């Protein structure tokens, strides 16, 4: 009896220690930008690459050194060949992306607003979206000829579907209450679409642009590899066939820069248009 009570007492006794500061234990898991490391990594890889090439550890035919690639780029720029290919590519991508985006936005908004467009559009999009659009190129060549139209159409088709999906997703996600608010003030329907639904759907539409831009770059290169005289894809294929790896890598660098530029433009656009978020 006494023993039992002592045991209970011991278990319930509070643990006492000296007074000390409560240690902080809530930090971490909040990655902060460390730009210096980003650039260091980039520079380090290029330096290592150059070093490996300079000591002759890799065959320049398989992997040309960064300096040789830079020289190839300079040559391309000086001879004007770069502009010929780049302008051909940029024209196609600008046309294809714009056509696909305009059509995609139109159908996406229609699906978001009208039952009929929804009933017709969603199954159609669901059926065609998974088809790799490059598979349509032979058919499009048959329809439109081997010229510019078939390449532009391929890019437009590739841009169209992600744009439709992002747009109607954005329209669907517009808070119902905002629309109801506008209706409660008798705002006309067209104005509700322009002043409430579209701005509210803009974040989703812009993230759709990111997908459609990278899709259009992919399709551009692929289409130009299949049948084009000029353009980055044609240039890459030619360089590969002639085993001019320095030229080939120069082309890859240009594509990378192109992608980065477009990405930066989109980020700036998001920052200025979506500052309210």
């Amino acid at each position, binding site marked *: 009896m006494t023993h039992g009570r002592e045991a209970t007492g011991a278990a319930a006794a509070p643990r006492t220690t000296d007074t000390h500061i409560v240690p902080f234990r809530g930090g971490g898991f909040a990655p902060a930008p460390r730009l210096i490391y980003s650039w260091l990594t980039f520079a380090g890889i290029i330096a290592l690459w150059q070093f490996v090439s300079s000591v002759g550890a890799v065959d320049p035919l398989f992997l040309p050194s960064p300096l040789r690639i830079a020289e190839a780029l300079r040559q391309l720029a000086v001879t004007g060949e770069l502009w010929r290919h780049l302008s051909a590519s940029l024209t196609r991508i600008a046309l294809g992306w714009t056509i696909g985006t305009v059509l995609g936005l139109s159908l996406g908004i229609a699906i978001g607003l009208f039952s009929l467009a929804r009933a017709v559009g969603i199954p159609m999009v669901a059926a065609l979206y998974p088809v790799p659009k490059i598979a349509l190129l032979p058919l499009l060549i048959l329809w439109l000829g081997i010229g510019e139209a078939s390449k532009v159409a391929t890019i437009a088709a590739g841009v169209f579907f992600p744009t439709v999906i992002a747009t109607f997703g954005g329209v669907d996600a517009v808070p119902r209450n905002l629309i*109801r608010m506008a209706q409660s*003030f008798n705002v006309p329907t067209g*104005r509700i679409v322009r002043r409430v639904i579209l701005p509210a759907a803009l974040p989703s539409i812009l993230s759709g642009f990111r997908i459609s831009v990278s899709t259009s770059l992919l399709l551009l290169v692929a289409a130009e590899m299949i049948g084009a005289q000029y353009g980055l894809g044609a240039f890459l294929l030619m360089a590969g066939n002639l085993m001019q790896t320095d030229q080939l890598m120069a082309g890859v660098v240009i594509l990378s820069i192109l992608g980065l530029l477009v990405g930066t433009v989109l980020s700036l656009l998001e920052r200025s248009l979506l500052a309210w978020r």
Partner: protein
Amino acid sequence: MGEFSAEPGLSEPAMHLRAEAIGHRYDDLTVLENVDLDVGEGEFLAVIGPSGCGKSTLLGIMGGILAPTSGRVLVGGTAPPRSLNPLTYIFQDFALLPWRTAAGNVAFALEHHALSTAERDARVADALVRTGLTEFADALPKQLSGGMRQRVGIARALAVNPAVLLMDEPLSALDAQTRELLMEDFLALWLDQRVTVVYVTHNLAEALRLADRICVLSRRPGRIKDIVPVPIPQHERAGPAAQMDLAAIGERLWAMIRAEAQTAEREVLHDARP
């Protein structure tokens, strides 16, 4: 609304609402059943009831933004001379456009009307002054506190010179202190210009502080259980003399709501059970 004109010296023009045999169903869920409700000119009517009893649905139907399954709503009387939107809503979640500033949100209610820029700006400025928002005119909703956001919602409603304000739990998303402050300010606005108000809430204290009459809805399907007048002028209700009477009315109301809310609570649990 330009044809309405106010006779100087007469009392403010006002409008009344009448809900007749309102019923509402979502699929096979009956939300409202046979609700008859009269709201007089310049009256402040609170509608109170347990959650899910269809209070907000009733308000939506009375304001014409939800279609009732049965019954109809009539509106009569005279709109104020410069009223652009006689039946005007104030929302629980404020319903502000997040990409517009406070002033821009107020202007949104005016932009589709044929107003001169000068008149529009004047209306916006006036509404912001009355809600104490002038210095926040250029702030985006994300930069404003909840209370300030609802002030923008109230300013937007005032800017169109409403005849009837339909308020859907306007203070429910706010903390207790903000609620108290905003309630005082809103009451001052209303005492200054007595528009007809239908005020939906689940908060008995708000109803007791603000309303001329309090309509108690039963649990779902919502029916009118009772309509209780609060025969004490609003400006006297904060004082000590009114507390006994208010407490008595409050107790009576609470007894009614308590039973409904308890049963409603159990029904909610029952519905949630797999």
